[in-house]
């Protein structure tokens, strides 16, 4: 059974419980303590050790009388677990697999940290996990499970240098648990479940919102284009995807291969012709 996330941004209150629950369950370190001044977003982006990230988009009118039209959009971003995943296609070692839940999963013990997946992700999700630095403030953990107290680092930190991203809580799913972020979300903005069911629910939700006069669209419930197909983690948005830092037209890198090879072939033929022309005269 393929499972996934339906993130309904109209229900998000920006509490970031998903970020914290994800880090706690997966024993991910903090990414440092930087004040960005970018609304309430101080973690900035998904990284090798931040697998859920809440975007804050302020749309405030400058007209002091315009209070009723102000919006502050919040959306919890995550790996999309694409039908055709760029990272999976690019991985030369076979570390990235599609598991029994339809999720794209990186096996840390197979990954050699080449980074091909990082540049192949159409959404900029995958990143390399920094090498463990016991002195570094970036690697503060709130807790360690007892089994790892001796090494003073978590599984993720032990595999520093390899690629990291959301596993769709593979370990939790295997024992029948809901992923940590969906479990922690207080307003059911993040919903987890069977994909067919989630998609049906999402479409019904769009209808409800449309009736109430809210312009809502789904992102990734159906084919998102660019050869990627549908997304196992899809979103309900009330603005254009770019507003939430989601690409409007994501493209799977491998779809550019035929054009690339053709261009290369044309160039080769062209060069050969040019060479023949030059040398014929000589």
């Amino acid at each position: 059974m393929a499972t996934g996330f339906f993130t309904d941004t109209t229900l998000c209150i920006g509490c970031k419980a998903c970020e914290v629950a994800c880090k706690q369950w997966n024993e991910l370190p903090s990414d440092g303590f930087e004040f960005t001044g970018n609304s309430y977003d101080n973690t900035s982006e998904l990284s090798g050790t931040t697998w859920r990230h809440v975007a804050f988009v302020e749309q405030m009118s400058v007209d002091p009388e315009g209070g009723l039209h102000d919006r502050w959009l919040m959306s919890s971003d995550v790996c999309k677990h694409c039908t055709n995943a760029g990272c999976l296609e690019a991985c030369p070692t076979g570390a990235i697999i599609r598991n029994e839940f339809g999720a794209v999963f990186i096996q840390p013990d197979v990954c050699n940290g080449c980074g091909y997946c990082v540049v192949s992700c159409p959404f900029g999700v995958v990143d390399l996990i920094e090498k463990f630095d016991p002195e570094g403030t970036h690697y503060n953990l709130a807790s360690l499970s007892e089994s790892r107290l001796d090494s003073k680092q978590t599984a993720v930190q032990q595999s520093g240098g390899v690629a990291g991203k959301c596993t769709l809580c593979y370990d939790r799913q295997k024992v029948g648990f809901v992923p940590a972020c969906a479990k922690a979300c207080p307003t059911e903005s993040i919903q987890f479940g069977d994909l067919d069911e989630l998609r049906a629910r999402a479409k019904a939700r769009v209808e409800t919102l449309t009736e109430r006069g809210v312009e809502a669209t789904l992102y990734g419930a159906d084919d998102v284009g660019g050869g990627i197909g549908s997304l196992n983690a899809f979103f309900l948005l009330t603005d254009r995807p770019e507003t939430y830092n989601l690409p409007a037209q994501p493209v799977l890198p491998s779809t550019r291969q035929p054009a690339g090879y053709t261009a290369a072939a044309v160039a080769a033929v062209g060069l050969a012709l040019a060479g023949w022309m030059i040398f014929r005269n000589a």
Partner: protein
Amino acid sequence: MPGLGTSFGRGGATVWVPDLQNADCILIEGSNFAEAHPVAFRFVMKAKERGATIIHVDPRFTRTSAVADIYAPIRSGTDIAFLGGIINYVLANDKIFREYVEAYTNASYIVGEAYKDTDELDGLFSGYNEETRSYDVSTWAFERDEQGVIKKDPTLAHPRSVYQVLKRHFARYTPEMVERTCGTPKEQFLKIAETLAKNSGRERTTAFAYAVGWTQHTAGVQFIRTAAILQTLLGNIGRPGGGIMALRGHANIQGATDIPTLYDLLPGYLPMPSALRDEQTLDAYLKTNTKATGWWANTPTYMISLLKAFYGEHATAENDYGYEYLPQLIGDHSMLPTTFAMKDGAVKGYFVIGQNPGASGQNAELVRAAMERLEWFVNIDSYDNETVSFWRREGADPAKIGTEVFFLPAATVLEKEGTMVQTSRLLQWHDKAVEPAGSSKSDAWYFNWFMKRIKELYADSTDPKDRPILHTTWDYDHDDPHERAKGEPSVLKVLQEINGFNVADRTQVGGFTELKGDGSTACGGWIYSGVCPDARTNRARNRNASGEYTALDWGFAWPANRRTLYNRASADPSGKPWSERKKYVWWDEAKGEWTGVDVPDFPKTKAPSTPADKHAKGMAFHSGADPFIMNVDGVAQLFVPAGLQDAPLPAHYEPLQSVVENPIYAQQSNPLMREWIRRDNAYNKPVDAEYPYVMTTYRVTEMSGIMTRYVPWLAELQPSAFAEIDPELAVSKGIKNGEYVTISTALGEMEARALVSGRMRPLRVNGKKIHQIGIPYNYGSMVAFARGDSVGELIPIAVDPNVSIHESKTLTCNIRAGRRRAHHEGRVDREVPPDERTRMGEPTF
């Protein structure tokens, strides 16, 4: 607490959180609900999904505003004017729920001729004594006939009826006046007033939710009173999806009031004996505090049962059940006045447990400087914090500080068992999940150990003054040998004692109705009675959410497991639900009892037709249609003739530190508020050109305080102190987003990172443009990952007259780009000469 208490009878929230989903409209004001209570906010979102209109009124556009249907900006501290404006709107346009108001409130009562309103006296009520800054409240009394019965006019037409007094009192709170005072555009205000009116009445209900945004003001109690009056006029109290949700800031803050950590209360809202009142003997105490009619006629039963729980076999009828052992108040011993006394050298020792006043206290430097005068200081906490480390703060010289500091490690909540009583008055038991780390102990361990040790030290004493120690019962040893060996007491035994038991055979009582005033029962906190009705049952453990949505088998809500208080009012006077849609508790004629989805908050078999016996004592004084059983007369108090020191009806006063003159009355601020005018507690002058901006404080969802500052996953989300500033002000002051700014008041300076955002916006108040600056209250500068100056450095102490709550939500300040000076530079000599000092025990009210 007295805002709700004097209006309805009990100080707790009138509703419980999940009931919010039944509301047709929710007004959130004085609270950043989504950020401060994200889990409870789930039920607001559910209501929204069911079609309810969510309204948020706040100085800042917050994460709550982001999901609200209507957001309106307001100048911080002007909520009485805003809500008063809505009261005026519903009265003037006859939008009240008239049948409800006629039947269930004191609207028809006639106010005495001596009463003069703020409307006539320009901001003061009758009976004001300027010298003592107090009111003679006898001028606020109702008119009575020869037999002492209050005169009424059921038609509400009498010019001195509460209804007409209300109308006149709020007549000047027009939409234009609201706009001038609050800065809320008139159209937005009217839209909100209309929405509330439209969603109240027989078929629909509106709920209010507030938090410390309403309480922490020098007129804080009156903020709540304004909401109580409005919700009563709209007929929303005691009904599903209605009520007033008082959101408590911490997981157990309700519990800490019920079984209080407050100096002036005993468990179950019994007053602490006072030397300033006629309470020197038990008889005198009971005479002063027992109400002739209503539920509080039971005061003797609860007080004597409490003394039996305290002193066991040593509490006998002959020795007034040990009443004399209780300490008596000789003044205001609440935290802030005591801090001044400490600074002046009148306090020797200080315990701080689970709090960090050295960072988050008001006038935090006063707190830390005061601690230098102590002989000893004990801190029980899980983390190093700014309070226990006061001696090594910036600018302090440890060599000159004589205070002996004891830092005892505390177990965290997961490392101990016990109950927490949250905002819905729900007791929920939690087990110990893991053993405490290192040598940490539970708070209960420490107090068990202290008391045993003290008893040991006095064991041989024959001095009568030591009897309170020797005669206090103390038998909480754990039954589990493992826990007993570690010295952990059984908190279940404490809960069982709070529940109450029959003294003769030590069997548990089933509830407070089984308690007796003859010494045959003991009860440590009558309002929780019923939580452990027998030796094997602990209803706080219940975790069954099936069945009705009221989930009566989930935890135990005081009193008597009732979820919505005053729920008799969900039915009309004849006992039928006001409407099918809003059915909750009703009279079952066939069975001859009250029934419904909740535990009825009414004598179970008292028929709606039961007439009132106006000469009876206790509950018989109430008719079968008087839903507010705790109140003397069984109805909600629109007008409060006694019980509050500063007003029978709320009037808008400016905060002590305000940027404008009061647009509504000549009286600038609450005449009864209490100030400490001394050099270590400097106030900005009202309308001070040096401090032209409004400053408001709050917490953010990612941070609470010392506990969260140490969690890296939370610290990375909000790593440092910041100040929210509107773009216009930022431009005019040369402030760049993300860079440091320094905020100053007469008391001091703090630095923070600038967060320039359109979510903050200037308001037009009384023709003047007002900028508001928001500063989160979460930080401290000495320890943990998330650090920054505390806004407590900027807040001088001034308190409300009823509950000594400080004013920390509305202040004035100045701001500039750049970092602050070092604290020791420019800090004026704050040594206080003797004539400015507070004497310990001085009656200050």
